[in-house]
């Protein structure tokens, strides 16, 4: 058969958003030629050079005719080598090597090696999610990506090792044998990791409280203190007290991991919230997301539903810190590039750690500090007001006294986690009828300032005074209220009282306030 039309389906990704793509191949009389149209990027446009040898090795050579492949809708950019397999299947359908129409409604993803093997690709999870939403029933993915594709409900996943195997499936399908589904992975119980635990941290009751509040209400946290007191240790243990992710949340974080991680890294749903700690030399693009042409998710999106820890926060470039402001408010980041605009989720818990001054010894009376006043001021000024205004909890982490060694070890993570989970459940129930926010940290300020959640004026008296004196902005006022609600949830109280409001205010301004 020299003239023919073959069709199959695939998915084009723009960020995490997948668009179903029809892959059409037309074989016409003419000199041998193989062109791919429909905005392929260079990797995708090279597909013919991989498909021709791969098909020849697989025993189904590409016919020496004029072949035109179109990726429809043709106006959306197509990226990467993941279109090799769908293009090959469409061409072989057109040439008759794959019996007519069998592959039409099957979604294919995968890169071809020159020897006909199918190689794993990035972004299989979001692509299969999009395919499932578009109503696809069968998905053929590289065998390395089977694990992540099987996380999606409602589609039958087929794991391909080679083009020859796929062609064999369709030849068998002609006689009524359905495509063999990939075996479901035997559920291996994840080994209990003895990772970091909150019990490792010595002393620091105030920082522990702040950490617990941060985990409870999703409040952002700044810890300042001299080097070597355990700021980094505390931050790393924050994920151990966060409640496990729900299935939807875990799918979102894994979709991002599927775009950025190693191919085939995502094999099962890991409910642990992610912990991302970019180095302070990171660029704006690596933190917020970006890149030339392709906008990949950055650290803030990898920390989605988890913790973003900026150690030595004042050492970060000002522009990097400023890019955090908008995602902190909206929970997502919009990256505009010349060709497209992509939006990644970025609802993370921000933890900042800072030294009090460049030399790190300006605590207490600061007698040992060797910094000039000007240096201290410019150092503190690098964490801009607008950024700190979004940080609800600001604690000083003082040097540990020797007496603290003698104490029994602190509470282990499991105990704190149980408390946090209970408090989270209380929040969820409270806000379920009023707006469906998951945590106190997400509740808009006007809700907290109006009935039925308005607190009596004798409870907020301290807070009102701070606002009147201009020590708090209105946004800061709202944030203290949120922390107060979290403190009440932790304490098992229905409504915050004076104590909780005082705690919120003390942890916000970093000053002790008499309750």
């Amino acid at each position: 058969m020299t003239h023919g039309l073959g069709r199959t389906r695939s998915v084009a990704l723009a960020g995490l958003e997948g668009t179903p793509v029809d892959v059409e191949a037309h074989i016409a009389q003419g000199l041998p030629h193989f062109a791919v149209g429909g905005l392929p990027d260079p990797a995708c446009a090279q597909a013919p050079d991989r498909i021709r040898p791969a098909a020849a090795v697989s025993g189904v050579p590409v016919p020496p005719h004029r072949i035109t492949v179109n990726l429809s809708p043709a106006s959306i950019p197509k990226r990467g080598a993941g279109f090799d397999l769908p293009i090959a299947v469409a061409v072989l359908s057109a040439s008759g090597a794959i019996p007519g129409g069998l592959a039409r409604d099957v979604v294919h993803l995968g890169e071809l090696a020159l020897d006909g093997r199918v190689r794993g690709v990035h972004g299989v999870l979001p692509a299969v999610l999009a395919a499932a939403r578009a109503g696809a029933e069968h998905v053929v993915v590289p065998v390395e990506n089977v694990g992540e594709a099987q996380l999606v409900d409602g589609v039958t996943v087929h794991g391909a090792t080679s083009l020859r195997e796929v062609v064999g499936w369709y030849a068998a399908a002609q006689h009524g044998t359905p495509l063999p589904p990939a075996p479901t992975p035997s559920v291996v119980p994840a080994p209990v990791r003895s990772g970091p635990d909150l019990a490792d941290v010595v002393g620091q009751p105030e920082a522990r409280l702040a950490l617990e509040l941060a985990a409870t209400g999703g409040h952002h946290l700044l810890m300042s203190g001299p080097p070597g007191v355990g700021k980094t240790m505390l931050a790393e243990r924050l994920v151990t007290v966060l409640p496990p992710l729900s299935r939807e949340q875990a799918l979102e974080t894994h979709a991002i991991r599927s775009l950025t991680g190693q191919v085939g890294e995502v094999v099962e749903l890991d409910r642990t919230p992610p912990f991302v700690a970019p180095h302070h030399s990171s660029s704006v693009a690596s933190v917020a997301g970006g890149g030339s042409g392709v906008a990949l998710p950055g650290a803030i999106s990898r920390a989605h539903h988890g913790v973003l820890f900026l150690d030595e926060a004042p050492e970060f470039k000002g522009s990097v810190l400023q890019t955090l402001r908008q995602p902190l408010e909206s929970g997502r980041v919009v990256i505009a590039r010349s060709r497209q605009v992509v939006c990644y989720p970025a609802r993370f818990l921000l933890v900042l750690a800072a030294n009090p001054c460049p030399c790190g010894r300006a605590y207490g009376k600061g007698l040992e500090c060797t910094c000039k006043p000007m240096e201290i001021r410019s150092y503190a000024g690098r964490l801009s007001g607008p950024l700190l205004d979004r940080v609800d909890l600001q604690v000083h982490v003082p040097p540990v006294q020797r007496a603290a060694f003698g104490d029994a070890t602190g509470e282990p993570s499991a105990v704190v986690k149980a408390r946090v989970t209970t408090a989270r459940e209380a929040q969820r129930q409270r806000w379920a009828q009023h707006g469906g926010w998951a945590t106190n940290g997400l509740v808009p300020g006007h809700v907290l300032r109006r009935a039925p959640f308005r607190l009596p004026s004798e409870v907020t008296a301290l807070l009102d005074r701070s606002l009147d004196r201009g020590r708090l902005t209105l946004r800061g006022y709202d944030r203290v209220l949120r922390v107060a609600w979290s403190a009440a949830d932790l304490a098992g109280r229905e409504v915050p009282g004076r104590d909780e409001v005082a705690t919120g205010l003390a942890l916000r301004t970093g000053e002790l306030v008499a309750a």
Partner: protein
Amino acid sequence: MRYLREQGMEVLERNWRCEHGEVDVVARDGDCLVICEVKTRRSSGFGEPVEAVTFAKARRLRRLAAAYLAASAAAARGAAGGTGGRHVAEVRVDVIGILCRPGRPAVVRHVVGVGS
């Protein structure tokens, strides 16, 4: 040759040369002038015969077609000849690939209208 005649074409010239190169066959198919490149291979180890005609070669064939037309028009002014004195409505470039493997019948593949 016999194949082309069976296709109802009239062969006008064989191995026609000019400064741009050589045309294997010039034929006429009704009102259409056919510039024909013939490729023969003994095996398909280096690809199909027609695959040897690259884009650059196809372009040269087009140039040859124009050169032939110009030459034949000049000849027609002098004496009837060239296109046989008949009006030519269109020109097309064909490639004929012949695969003659030893011990097996030759396979002819005729690609009509290359590079248009």
